[in-house]
């Protein structure tokens, strides 16, 4: 700062002289107004309101005045100091506000910078699809059952009305385990869980069993030696095919949305009689203008799985009284369901382990 070092060379102000006091006030107010930043204002405060400022010194003089003069001088100097302090305070508030504003501007960052410091993980869509399916049935009061994947031949076939010479056995290309006398297989379907459930629980039975199954198919875009099925089983008094249809319609709607229901076509499974194939209304075209639909390939329907009334022979082998109880069962592919629900075109993606497959599915499907 240029000019005389007023700090060390204080101007004498006589407290009795109003003009001198006023001149000091004017000088002070001008200096306050002229302070461009907080640093300058600090200096102004020192010069005009500090201990050695003219007004402070004048104030100190008051005590030495004759008593009759003290009152007037005191009032004059006090008022002057008040004006200066008030101006200082106001200026300080303004400058502080300006300073803060400037700081915030200066601290601006590029918020578009990436924040991908940690890896993103994901659960497998097949796992999540199995859970989603289980949840649909658990919400209806059903229970979830599980079973072993290496299974007794008797449970995988015989108990399900597929004796050793049943042609349907050859339709399920089975992985047999060594030695042959062990009579063990990698389960070809989740149906042995049905049999296990009936053998270990009393009716009424309402269970759903998602799980991994095995067939001797070479892997390609639509086949895999390992895949996933979900099986449903209900055993109760008075159960009919209508209850089967109701349950599957509910399932279809829960998975694919309002208005998506099923249709039955006669079919054959050894463990059910009557048996049906379940088709799903195509959830993409809803059967309207199906011709150009890639999901159902013009059918308006999507093949979803198989179902039927539990064959009384199966009930007998599993210790359920067929005179008292009826039941229904259904089964569908979880992989297939996931594939058409999400437009996955190649089954190999599911089993190959490339993290780029699972990652977009995140933690909920």
């Amino acid at each position, binding site marked *: 700062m240029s000019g005389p070092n007023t700090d060390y060379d204080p101007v004498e102000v006589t407290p009795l002289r109003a003009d001198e006091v006023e001149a000091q006030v004017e000088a002070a107010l001008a200096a306050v107004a002229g302070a461009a930043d907080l640093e300058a204002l600090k200096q102004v405060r020192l010069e005009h309101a500090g201990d050695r400022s003219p007004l402070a010194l004048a104030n100190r003089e008051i005590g030495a005045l004759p008593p009759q003069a003290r009152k007037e001088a005191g009032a004059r100097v006090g008022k002057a100091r008040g004006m200066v302090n008030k101006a200082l305070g106001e200026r300080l508030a303004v400058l502080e506000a300006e300073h803060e504003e400037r700081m915030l501007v200066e601290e601006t960052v590029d918020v578009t910078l990436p924040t991908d410091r940690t890896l993103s993980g994901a659960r497998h869509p097949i796992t999540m699809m199995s859970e989603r399916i289980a949840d649909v049935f658990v919400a209806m009061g059903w229970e979830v059952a599980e079973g072993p994947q290496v299974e007794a031949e008797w449970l995988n076939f015989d108990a399900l009305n597929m004796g050793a010479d049943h042609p349907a056995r050859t339709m399920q290309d089975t992985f047999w385990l060594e030695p042959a006398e062990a009579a063990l297989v990698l389960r070809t379907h989740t149906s042995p869980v049905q049999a296990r459930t009936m053998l270990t629980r009393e009716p009424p039975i*309402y269970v759903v069993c998602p799980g991994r199954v095995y067939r001797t198919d070479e892997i390609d875009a639509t086949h895999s030696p390992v895949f996933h099925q979900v099986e449903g089983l209900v055993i109760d008094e008075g159960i009919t095919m209508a209850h089967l249809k109701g349950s599957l319609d509910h399932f279809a709607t829960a998975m694919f949305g309002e208005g998506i229901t099923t249709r039955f*076509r006669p079919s054959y499974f050894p463990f059910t009689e009557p048996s049906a194939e379940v088709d799903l209304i195509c959830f993409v075209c809803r059967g309207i203008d199906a011709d150009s639909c890639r999901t159902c390939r013009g059918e308006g329907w999507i093949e979803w799985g198989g179902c039927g009334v539990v064959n009384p022979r199966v009930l007998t082998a599993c210790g359920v009284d067929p005179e008292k109880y009826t039941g229904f069962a259904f089964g569908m592919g979880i992989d297939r369901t996931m594939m058409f629900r999400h437009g996955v075109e190649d089954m190999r993606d599911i089993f190959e382990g490339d993290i780029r497959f699972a990652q977009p599915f995140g933690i909920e499907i």
Partner: protein
Amino acid sequence: MKAPVSWIREYVDLPEAVSTDELAAKLTMLGLKLEALETPADAITGPLVVGRVLSIEKEPQKNGKVINWCTVDVADANGTGEPQGIICGAHNFVEGDLVVVCLPGAVLPGNFEISARKTYGHISAGMICSAAELGLGEGAFNSHDGIIVLPADAGAPGDDAFDVLDMHDSVIEFEINPDRAYALSLRGIAREAATGFDVPFRDPADRDVPAANGDGPPVVVDDAEGCPVFVARSVTGFDASAPTPEWMAQRLAGAGMRPISLAVDITNYVMLELGQPIHGYDRAKLAGAIRVRRATEGEQLTTLDGQLRKLSAEDLLITDDSGPIGIAGTMGGQTTELSESTSDVVIEAAHFDAVSIFRTERRHKLPSEASKRFERGVDPELPAAAADRVVELMVELGGATADDGVTVVGEAPPRRSVTAATDLPARVTGMEISAETTVANLEKVGCDVTVNGDTLAATVPSWRPDMSDPFDLVEEVARIVGYDKVPSVLPPAPSGRGLPLAQKLRRRVGLVLAGAGWTETINYPFVGDVDWANLGLADDDERRRTIRMANPLNAEEPQLATTLLPGLLRSLGLNVGRGNADASLFETGLVFLPKGDEKAPILGVDRRPTDEEWAAIEKAVPHQPQHLALALTGQREREGWWGEGRQGSWADAIGAVRDVAGALGIEIEVRAASVAPWHPGRCAEIRVGETVLGHAGELHPKVCKAYGVPARSAAAEVDLDALLGLAQVTTPSPSFGSYPVAKEDVALVVDASVPSADVAAALHEGAGDLIESVRLFDVFTGEQVGPGKKSLAFALRFRAPDRTLKEGEAGAARDAAVALAGERMGAVQRA
């Protein structure tokens, strides 16, 4: 099963208005599922016309091939009436023949456009077509070795060839379920069509057949169980060189069977028509009587496919005095095969036991059109009619004379009767089905029904061996009423118990790991010895003891996995190979642990197993616990504008297991271990109490190399079932004081081999009741610490639950902690 629609219509008066699509849809809803529908004409855009070959000039080419430069009269079909010049490479035609010509502008199957183009020095304006080029069945129109040559009376030049070739006739391919073997014939399919449209059915098997007499070909049946019925007829003077008529060749081709020769074509035709497999023998090559018997072990036969087959004592054979001449119901032998010199034919129409045929077919891996039908069940009342039909066609088409002799050995079993409550269909399906509808529908499928009060007895037709139980009747009634009429009713809701605890916990584990940047994969559990070598497992490692598949897909991987690591590490390698350098994977899945000598009993099915039987099943099924495995490579935290990245390591593998255990409320203990496939100095054992739940750490460098992943990749595997079993389901409320905390840091020097966890434990114990936590925050080695030593820096926090600590209390507790660490592991506090 492929069925030309015109052939179906021959036996059923379908209204003309019924389209092929409607027919296919109706049959699908009856249980004969539409697999494919092909109409050859739909795949071709014309002009496709009849032409007469006017001239043929043979032009040898440099490559040795000879091509024909032809002129063909197509009348006005080409717009000019001038003969059409066409190059043709086939040689099975002569001047004057009627052929099929595709004119420029036509488009053949496969989007193959025909245009006039210069080739072999001529402008070839069109194409003379073969059956294959038109998408017709192989061998149709006698075009085995070239183009189609039409019969002389097929039409005139310029005629539309679509009609001449019957290309508007669609072929429906059905998927036939094992219980509907009768539909492996036109007879069966037409019967279903008649049922579906409620119109009359003309049974092609309904024919007057001559009665059996003693003059037929001699037949002896030694095994009446395997062969309940054997009908033999014969014809004399059959002209084996007579051509198969066009209509028959076309139908065979449409049904997917290649026309071969008249005799063979007739037997195939009758099989398709009626469903009865037929076998023809050259009578001149038969030695003595035909005998049906079981094989003796070691007997041999060369079947028609040229294979020499070793026979088993269970195989049912057709033999004569020379020995085996055919495997019954499966495939004939070469010695009595029909040939071009055959003149007298012995015709076999027999019924064979389904199970016997099924076993033979499987034993010899010899599926044939005949065995496919027999194993599913052929109408046992058919043989006489079928044999008679063959005789008729051989006389009519092959100029043969029918012999009077008719041999019939055995008889069809009596028709089965099934009893059921009349309201059973309604009760089982939930549809409103009256007793009248039930009876009417059973009659439609061929049953004779008598009703007695609330019960009906249905005598099931001979062509329905699948119908044996009351519920089989239900399905027949229901499918005719229509599955589309089944109402949709939710069953009464039970009071369920919700998701099982183990499943809830597994979801929690998955979420914790996914949230921490791990990605779940699913791998096949198929492994081989190479995996054990790759993992560096010792010869006696327990994990080498596996269950083996008898028929693995890959001979190199015949074992079921006892650890998830091989599959997971292969996935890790795949990710690295595909440029996913930073990969943290996890998998949950079963491992398969043999118990020893598993032997699961095959129990009866007429009752529930006894407790002992059930126990035997449970005992035989191997132990299959669910494991959790993790594998990682590359960075766990990426580098970026914020600074350096952090490379994943053994610590992340152990840390993830800790996170999982933490989420389950389990306190695990981590101890140093040395187990393959881990780095021997960087492997941890995960324990709870005395139980070892798994291992985690850095992979051995050789293992990384074997699986193609970078060195220092890490992995973990734990028994998830065991871990879940220890989960803390109800967490007790924590207690914590609100009085001020006192913090003390200590740095302790110990031998480098002392586990830090032990030092921490000693500090914790030595500090007494006031200690709130002990946390290691730094590890330091180097000159200041001294060789073979390390410095561990701990932050200790003290707090009293009920008061503010007094001056010096925390310091005293710290000193006590340090003293115990000193006593236990020689820890010395650094100045």
